[in-house]
């Protein structure tokens, strides 16, 4: 596609519910990143894939967060047993190669009630 596509655009979840956020990167982009952006803050790194390999998951805040990219293209970020502090915009970004500029999707705004 022309850009990074994320779905859903908005997600409202009840506390304790599991959610899955989808990211479709730019075709041919090897690297894929997930970022979390809280209100009034900059994006904070969650995890990074190179093709299907998850090379860095040091930013995932707890074991309730899980990301996968099984075929090296589409990625899913899953949050289990959501809590109110998980409310944020989740941004996906891809890049052609490691270290190059990131191209971001519009994000998924998650609200946990």
């Amino acid at each position, binding site marked *: 596609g022309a850009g990074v596509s994320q779905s859903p655009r908005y997600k409202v979840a009840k506390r304790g519910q599991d959610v899955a956020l989808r990211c479709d990167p730019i075709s041919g982009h090897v690297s894929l990143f997930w970022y979390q952006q809280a209100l009034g803050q*900059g994006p904070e790194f969650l995890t990074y894939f190179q093709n299907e390999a998850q090379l860095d998951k040091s930013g995932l805040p707890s074991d309730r967060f899980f990301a996968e990219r099984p075929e090296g293209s589409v990625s899913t970020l899953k949050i289990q047993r959501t809590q109110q502090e998980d409310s944020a915009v989740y941004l996906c970004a891809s890049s052609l190669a490691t*270290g190059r*500029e*990131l191209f*971001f*999707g519009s994000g998924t705004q998650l609200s946990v009630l």
Partner: protein
Amino acid sequence: DQQVKQNSPSLSVQEGRISILNCDYTNSMFDYFLWYKKYPAEGPTFLISISSIKDKNEDGRFTVFLNKSAKHLSLHIVPSQPGDSAVYFCAASVWNTGNQFYFGTGTSLTVIP
């Protein structure tokens, strides 16, 4: 611990004048820096980058300056236009391990017609 800092949450500038956005970093290992622009309800879009081997990079109305000794970079927009009104984030990484970009908290620029 915030490794990239943008100490000015907001900035207002008259149309046609220069906008100067500032960014400081603490990690001396950072050697690749980027500026992103973000409109409401959209993901950040890449604007301009600079590597540490340079002290200036220019692209049209946008120029980024890097002062490595001060661990400081700035983005100059000349002349400023109303369409430049957005939130600007600076980001930094270590090039050869560039799987993690660190973002500042953003500066909201308003260009007054």
